Each structure stands twice: as structure tokens, then as C-alpha cells.
């Protein structure tokens, strides 16, 4: 079992648009993002600020819910979850 990660916009220049991450179930969003950042150069600068928090306009969703309104980086993932990561985007 694993967690599915989907990325969008400019993040697709850094890593595959979709991938399965084995062993992420039961771990935190923080642990998942750390693994991804270790694997894909440049990703950390896109997602985190200098203090290690998710940047203001970056949005990380777990099954359609922004983790900012769950336990943020400490949100625990389960097998089968879908994590969507967005760099700053806007429109309308």
C-alpha cells in the first residue's frame, strides 16, 4: 500500500506529475515531503520557507482537504490517501 502524490503547475518541471510513494501510510505529511525533497532537487525551495513551514501560497491537500486546516505538517497519512501539492497559483 502507498500514498499517491500529484503535483501541478511548475512543480511538474521538478518531478513526475503523479507517483506512488510506498510506506508513506502511517507517517506524517512532513515525512512524506521530506522524502520527496530529498529525491527531487529544487523541490524544497518551492515548498518550504526558511523556517521549515509550508510557504504562504503553497497548498498541500490530503484527499481534497488543505492540511493547513488539519494538523498541517503533522497530519498523519493513511494508505490510499491522495496528496496534491500546488505551488502558488491564481486566476479567476
Amino acid at each position: 500500500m502507498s500514498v499517491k502524490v500529484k503535483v501541478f503547475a511548475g512543480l511538474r518541471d521538478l518531478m513526475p506529475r503523479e507517483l506512488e510513494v510506498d510506506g508513506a501510510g502511517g507517517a506524517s505529511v512532513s515525512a512524506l515531503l521530506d522524502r520527496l525533497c530529498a529525491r527531487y532537487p529544487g523541490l524544497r525551495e518551492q515548498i518550504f520557507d526558511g523556517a521549515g513551514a509550508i510557504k504562504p501560497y503553497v497548498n498541500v491537500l490530503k484527499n481534497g482537504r488543505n492540511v493547513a486546516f488539519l494538523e498541517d505538517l503533522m497530519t498523519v497519512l493513511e494508505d490510499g490517501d491522495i496528496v496534491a501539492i500546488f505551488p502558488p497559483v491564481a486566476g479567476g
Partner: protein
Amino acid sequence: MNGYMDKILFVDLSKNRLEIKPFPDELKRNYLGGRGLGIKILADALDSIGDPLDESNVLIFATGPLTGSGVPLGSRYSVITKSPLTGTATSADSGGSFGWKMKKAGFDAVVISGKAKAPVYLYLKDGAAELRNAAGLWGKTTSETTAAIMADVGDSGAKVACIGPAGEKLSRLACVMNDRFRAAGRGGTGAVMGSKNLKAIAASGDLKIEVADPARVKALQKALVTKHAENGIAKALHDYGTAVLVNIINENYILPTNNFQGAHFPAADKVSGETLAKTILKKPKGCHSCTILCGRGTLVDGVETEGPEYETTWAFGPDCGVDDLMAIKKANDLCNELGIDTIGTGATIACAMEMSQRGYISEKIKFGDGAAVVELVRKMGYREGIGDEMADGSYRFAEKYGHSELSMSVKRQEMPAYDARGLQGHGLEYATSVRGGCHVYGYMVSPEVLGSPEKLDPYVDKDKARWTKTFQDLTATIDAAGICLFSSFAMGAPDYADSLSAVTGFPVDDKEVLKIGERIWNLQKLINLKLGFTRADDTLPKRLLEEPLAEGGPKGRVWSRTPLLNEYYRERGWDIAGRPMKAKLEELGLEAMAPVPFAK
């Protein structure tokens, strides 16, 4: 005052009379220009206006002090009128270069009344104006009209705002198109233009737009460009256009599909800004003085046009169950040529599809059929067959068959591409919008989804009334100032105050910026109250109040009207019926427009 050309042109088409008047300083200070000026003129004329498509209606084209001022993104103009779609006061905003050129031609605003005996177009040049015969233009598409007028005036730099066949045929979804690809889209402003036999307005000229403090404007340019670059949002808009929203809205499970029957579209990425960038994008395009370039110059079969934007992509795509970007592109291009609003048109087709699905109409129109979508756009623009009934929008169409509940509209104007069941604040914005269902009168998606200027939980009510009011007021000021709403992804009230002060020379602070917007908002509200709108109209379709979303984060949620609305009215200083109270009207200098009976 600097930043203005100090000329408002009044055109009485019935009497073939043109009169130029100065722009009173008091109006500039209280309403700035653009939407604010137009709403004030509309309010003053309201008692003499009957049906919106009657010659008694007035139609105002108005720029703001920041239009063409050199402040980045200062490109906008507004079209203001009594809407034939909603029956409310409305303003529709557009970019491109037309607004800038109107000022270079010597005019801040044009106020049109009456009806010409035969088709005409209005030509503005170097501070003068004339009406010209447009009989030969009637029936032409917007690109044909634009090219013909540029040739007629002998100026390849002329800018044209015009209607297409949809406006001529009085479709209540008809828009005003300028610079070929830019639309003052919502509310049926194109139908009002058509009802007056006015095919177009063209502008030529190179008069100087004076600013009070050129050095300060230059410094602001630099500072604002830096701000836009810093937050990363400008880059996403530049690289992927507004349709970069398709995926984030979809992943939040708030992308309306199949006429709001669902809120998640599995094939969303096929029609996303990312896919557009990889397939048909030729180059990013910008309006006058834009530093973002969110427009999409697109190339299909060797023909270069622009778009589609996000809302258009959604309307002809997921809302109609269509995952074919080329079909969306064709529908978009056809709308531009025929001069019909893409949001209203797509949402009306989605409504017809659901009517068909449920057997309420005999026509077989299936969700997912991109070719049918394109053909229906054509039929609506020319009022052919079922398109004739659909050309007046989803509400009138669905109501005719006894099922107005399937119109996903607020005050008869179709809601755009966000499901309010998962966005309590944005739902409040839809419900209370003084021009009907719309996303650009206070874009609460920004804090509730995008995290700008900060992240607000989209599912909770708390503080949403205050935020919605602030966004609505600030947006009204932005529209009145003549600057693009996308400036607000980097600018706050103090930045607008700085810009207005530098351009006009009249000191404005951040509190005044919000107060001007609040005045405009309340005046629009007072107009609507006078026209008979009540609290009952500040609502969303039954579906969003009673049918919970089925999946994803917002699963099980509906839009919670009563607590949000009550808090919003309190926040605004209105009574429980939604009428501005005496203290608020006095604070804003609007006592003369008090509703009857006077709310205390």
C-alpha cells in the same frame, strides 16, 4: 485633477446629439471613475429608466484614474447599465487596450442614452466625437467589425469595442468585445448596446494622460513588479494562464460538473492550464501596461486567437461534462466572434443538458458532447432553434419549462466555476453580489483556496462576513480606479492609496480606498432595493442549499445561508431585510438614496 482627461461625453442617440461636459471633482473624489462613476450616473437616471432593453436605459463606458496612468495593470474600463439579464444595476469590466485608448482619445467616460434610428458607431478622436453610419456593419462578427472600423477610420492603432450578432439579436447573455478577444462579459451589456442600434465605439488619438507625480509613479511601477514576482503567483499566471486553476479547484472537490450535479471532474487535467501550455499555447499575452501576461495567445490549425480562460474552460468543459480542450477552444472562439458571454453561455448549455437528461425537454443534448456544445453556442448567438430560447440565459430557459431550480444562477446570472458548498465565504459573495452570480465582485476563492493574502478554512462561517465585505469593497474601488483585479494578488489597500495619490495628486489613504468601495457597493445595493430586490434574492440555487456534495474534502456539505447572511448584513450596517441603515448612509453620504420606508 491629474489622471483624468476631464471630459465625459453624453450621447443621446434618439436626438443624434453629442455633448461634452467636464468631470466634476466631487464625483472623482467620491467615486473615482469606472464602475463607481457609472453606478452614480445610473443611480441618478434610475427613475426615468424602464425595461433594460428600452431606449430609456443608459449605457456607460467609463475608465478610471489609473487607466493608462503607467501604474502596472492599469488598463481597465467598465460598462455600466441596468442589466437585461438580472434587472439589477450591473457593471462589466474589461482589459485590453480600449480603455487606455479612450483616454488617449480624450475621454474619461461616454454616457449613451436613447436609440439610433439606424445602426451607428461612435468615433472618438483627439477630444472630439462623431456618430458614423454602421448599417454595413450590422450582422458582422466582432473581428469583422473591428477590422472594418479600423479601415474606415484609417488608423491601424484605433481600438474598438463592439457587439456581434448576439448583441444585435438582444441576447441577454450578449457582451461587449474589445480588442477582439477581451470581453466586458456579464449581465447582457451587449444586448443594451444592440437595443440602441449602437454597433461599436472606436477610439483614436495620442493625447497625454497627465499624472501628478511621475517620479512616484515610476517608483511604484518598480515596487509593484517586485511584489508580483515575489509571491510566485504572477509566474504561474504568466506560464499557465488563469486555467491553472482547473486542477487546484478540482482537487479541492469544488469544480462544478454536469451543471453542479457533481464537484469533481476526473479528466480535469486534460483541459487544464498545464495541458493548454503544452499543446496550443503560442505565447502569453497581456493587456495594456500589464506585467503578468495571463492572456493566452493560442494557435490552432495555423490560426492565432486568444484563450480560453479558466471560467470559459470550466463552462464549456467540466460543467458540460466535456474533456476535449479543442471543443472548448472552438466554443470560446465562437463566443468571441458572436459577442456572447462564455460563462453564461456554457452554464446555460449545461442547464439544457440536465433538462434533457431528466426528460424536461425533448431535445437530446448529452453531457460530454463537445460538438453539441459548439453547435449550441452558434445557435444561441444567432438565436436559431432551441438556441433562441437559450439565448436569454439559463433561468428564463429553465423557467419556461417549469424547472427554474435547474438554473445555477443568482439573480438570474449564472454562477461561475466554484461550488459554494465547499466555499462558505465565496457562497456569501455569490449570494450578496449586487450584480448577480459572479466571481469578480469579491473573490473569496483567494483566501479560501489559494491562500492569498492568508489561508482561511473554506468550510467555516467564522469571519467570512467581514472578509467578504472587505473584498467586495476593495474590488469596487479597484474597478472604479481602472486597474486589473489581479493587481490584488500583490497589492493591498495601502498600495492602491499610494497609486491613486501619485496619479491624481489628491491624497488618499487606505481607509478612504475602502470607503470609496463601500460607497459604490451601497449605492448599487440601494439601486437594487429601489428596483424591488429583497433579502429573498440574496440566496443560491436550491441545489446548493439542500443537496450535499458527494465526495472529497467537502463531502456532506451545503451552503449555510442564514447565519452567513445575518452576519453579513450586520457587518455592512444593514437591517435584517438587507437595507442600509441611516447611520451607514450618513457615513457614506448616501442619505438622499435612502430606501423607503427608511431603515433605522
